[in-house]
């Protein structure tokens, strides 16, 4: 098996895991056992998988409320994630965070913020700390097109360029902020990149449903960051197959064209990479083994979450 095929299989495994976890959440969610809003990454798996595959375990990732994908791709503990969604004390945030505030510092997943642009500055500060300490770590921050409406993006990027910080700004442009289309909020595609000086900021817009392309671009960005050449900006154009929050079939109607949804489902990043791997000669056994392993891992994580105790009311002050 060639190195490229091995890399692609790794990407596929990461994406499959995110997809199957989302599906398991969707199946369980109507049971009301997860008392927290969930924002699924269905359709956007290639961005998380591609970027995180370019990072080392000690590198750092910050994300938004839609943080399941980056959390899992960065190596976040699945048991702790599921327990957090169930509101249990074994959760990644001990039941204080819910689905929007997953954290696994051991895996370099530094946290999700429900304020969409909120982590842009904080991630920039983490990169500043890396530069000041000389620890060689790179930080990636995931955010959506909604955050690209906010001024804090330009403020953060300016500072990162000024100080040549080892950071990658990963814009997951999924087309919607809740139900508001990009076209209702921004004057032109990639308006935030208009006039960007390429000598200052390495910025690119790519197909965010092509995990291999995302990985290749992220690898270049990581290399730049480690070489002290400063920040990179990657716009990954993708689509939110699930609704804003909750299971896909709970999505409200009337804000998007169903044909558009069908068109993007055909561009599913998971299936797309699978087709490519099949063409490269990967045996179907490999896929079924991966499916089985993933299913077993998810089943065990749900068991762990169910068995974990709820926090005690006396835990309320534990983190003050």
């Amino acid at each position, binding site marked *: 098996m060639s190195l490229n095929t091995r890399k692609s299989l790794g990407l596929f495994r990461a994406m499959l895991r995110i997809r199957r976890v989302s599906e398991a959440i969707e199946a369980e969610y109507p049971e009301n056992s997860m008392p927290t809003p969930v924002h699924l990454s269905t359709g956007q798996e290639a961005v998380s998988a591609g970027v995180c595959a370019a990072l080392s375990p000690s590198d*750092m990732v910050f994300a938004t409320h839609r943080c399941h994908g980056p959390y899992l791709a960065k190596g976040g503990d699945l048991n702790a994630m599921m327990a957090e969604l169930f509101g249990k004390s074994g*959760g*990644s*945030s*001990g*039941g*204080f*965070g819910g689905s929007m*505030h997953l*954290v696994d*510092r051991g895996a370099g997943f*530094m*946290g999700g*913020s429900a*304020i969409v642009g*909120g*982590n*842009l*500055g*904080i*991630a*920039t*500060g*983490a*990169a*500043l*700390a*890396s530069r*000041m*300490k000389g620890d060689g770590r790179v930080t990636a921050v995931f955010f959506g097109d909604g955050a690209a409406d906010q*001024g*804090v993006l330009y*403020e*953060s990027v*300016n*500072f990162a360029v*000024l100080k040549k910080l080892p950071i990658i700004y990963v814009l997951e442009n999924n087309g919607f902020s809740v139900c508001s289309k990009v076209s209702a909020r921004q004057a032109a595609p990639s308006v935030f990149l208009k006039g960007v000086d390429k000598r200052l900021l390495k910025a690119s817009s790519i197909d965010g449903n092509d995990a291999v392309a995302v990985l290749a671009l992220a690898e270049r960005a990581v290399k730049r960051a480690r070489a002290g050449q400063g920040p990179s900006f990657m716009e990954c154009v993708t689509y939110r197959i699930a609704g804003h929050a909750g299971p896909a079939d709970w999505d409200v109607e009337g804000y998007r064209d169903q044909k558009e949804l069908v068109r993007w489902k055909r561009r599913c990043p998971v299936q797309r990479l699978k087709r490519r791997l099949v063409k490269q000669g990967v045996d179907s056994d490999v896929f079924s083994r991966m499916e089985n392993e993933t299913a077993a891992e998810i089943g065990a994580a749900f068991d762990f979450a169910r068995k974990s105790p709820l926090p005690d009311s006396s835990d309320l002050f*534990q*983190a*003050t």
Partner: protein
Amino acid sequence: MEADPSVFVMGQGVDDPWAMFGTTSGLSGRFGPDRVFDTPLSEAALAGVATGAAICGLKPVYMHNRPDFLLLAMDQIANHAAKWTQMYGGRAGKVPLVVWACTGRGWGAAAQHSQALHGLFLHVPGLKVVLPSSPGDAKGLMLAALADPGPVMVFDHRDNFRLTGPVPEGPYFTPIGRGIIRRAGRHVTLAAVSSAVVMALGAAETLKEKGIEAEVVDLRSAKPLDAALVAESVRRTGRLVVMDTGYPAGGLAAELVARVAEAAFGAFLAPPLRIGIPDLSVPASPTLEAAYFPSKGGVVRAIMGLFG
């Protein structure tokens, strides 16, 4: 900064000749541009930068010429720095961040350069708020803020920059959340912060001539608030006047009066009194400023009113 290499100072102009009204004088020459640096006028992002650096083990001091600019950073302070530890159940680390701002008044600085906003931050869980009233506490509270594992807001007052007083050599810590009795008295408790402590001590001198012995409590911290010390004082004096540099409505004075009333309602011989700045934007012209800010004469008259 000598004792702890993880401390650094950032803020607009911290390395310029103004040096934050002299607060950061000489720092950049001594500790270099990596530890003392100027910032873009990007308060929202830079408050996040300071928070992110704190999460990653450094101790940033983010300085602002005026507290008015903190409003641009409110998301990062209230939604992020203040919440970070608790919303992740303590598993995302601490935020040893110090945010410093200089409250000013006078000389026509007007509505957006003279605000006293510390009361806003009292409302946010996860923050500490300190207001030194003396040169010694300016150092002791700053060192305590730096030693604190969580975010601390330090509000200095420009009037205090004219004060002189003992400042011990070497490191020492003024405890955050503990007030101190600056002057003992038995007829009325004047509980104050920052430059209002100076005014309270002046008012106490004048009141003494009128036969009223005022006890002056310097709160030193607005959050945590040493209401117990004030309640204990009111149990002795029977009267409470809160003197704040900020707005009485929903702020420090309102909170303290409520807390003392909860603890020592039966001790009151007269209704509690709040002295702060009016519920109006700060005006520029000298005559309007004089009418806006409390004067010693006005304060003394108001306190005398408690004695029928």
